[in-house]
C-alpha cells in the first residue's frame, strides 16, 4: 500500500504573528523569510519606493482623527505601509501641500502603497499556512 504524502505541520501561532508583523513592518520580508527571495526583494524595493514618491510629490500622512471617518480610513490605509509610514511620521515628512498640483497624486501613492503592503502580508500568511 502506497504511503500517504506527509503534509508539513501547521506553523505555530506565535511564529505566524511574528511573520505577519515583520512582513508588515518591512515590505517583502515575509516572502524573503519563506525563501521567496525574488518576490520579496521586488516588494522590498517597489513598495517603499512608491511610498517615497508619494511623500516627494507632497502627499500627506494623515493622522488617526476619529472625529472624521474618511481621514481615519486614509490613515489606516497609509499605516499599512509599515515602517516607511512610522519613519515618515517620526521625521515630520508628509505634511502635505494642498496647493501643490501633485497633492492628490501623492495621497494616492501613499494609500495604495499601504494597501498593497497589506495584500503582500496576506500573501505571506497564505504561504506560511500552506494555502499557496
Amino acid at each position, binding site marked *: 500500500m502506497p504511503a500517504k504524502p506527509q503534509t508539513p505541520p501547521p506553523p505555530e501561532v506565535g511564529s505566524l504573528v511574528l511573520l505577519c508583523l515583520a512582513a508588515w513592518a518591512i515590505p517583502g520580508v515575509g516572502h524573503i523569510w519563506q525563501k521567496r527571495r525574488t518576490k520579496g526583494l521586488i516588494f522590498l524595493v517597489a513598495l517603499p519606493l512608491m511610498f517615497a514618491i508619494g511623500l516627494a510629490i507632497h502627499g500627506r500622512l494623515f493622522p488617526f482623527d476619529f472625529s472624521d471617518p474618511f481621514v481615519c480610513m486614509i490613515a489606516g490605509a497609509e499605516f499599512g505601509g509599515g515602517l516607511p509610514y512610522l519613519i515618515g511620521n517620526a521625521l515630520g515628512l508628509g505634511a502635505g501641500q494642498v496647493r501643490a498640483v501633485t497633492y492628490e*497624486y501623492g495621497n494616492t501613492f501613499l494609500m495604495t502603497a499601504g494597501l498593497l503592503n497589506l495584500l503582500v502580508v496576506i500573501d505571506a500568511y497564505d504561504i506560511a499556512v500552506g494555502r499557496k
Partner: protein
Amino acid sequence: MMQSHLLLLVTFAFFVSLVFALLTKDDAREQLRFGGMMFGGFLAAAIILGWLMLPFPF
C-alpha cells in the same frame, strides 16, 4: 519634482501592475503577461475615460 500627470499615471500603473502580477501568478511568463495586460489596461482606461470626459464643462 515630477509634475506630469501622464508620467505619474504611468508610474502608478507600473507599481500596481508589478505587485499584482507577483501576488497572483507564480510563473515568470504568466507574471509578465498578466502585469503587461494590467499595465496596458490602466493606461488605456485612463486615456479613454479622459477623452470621454473632455466635453464636460467642469
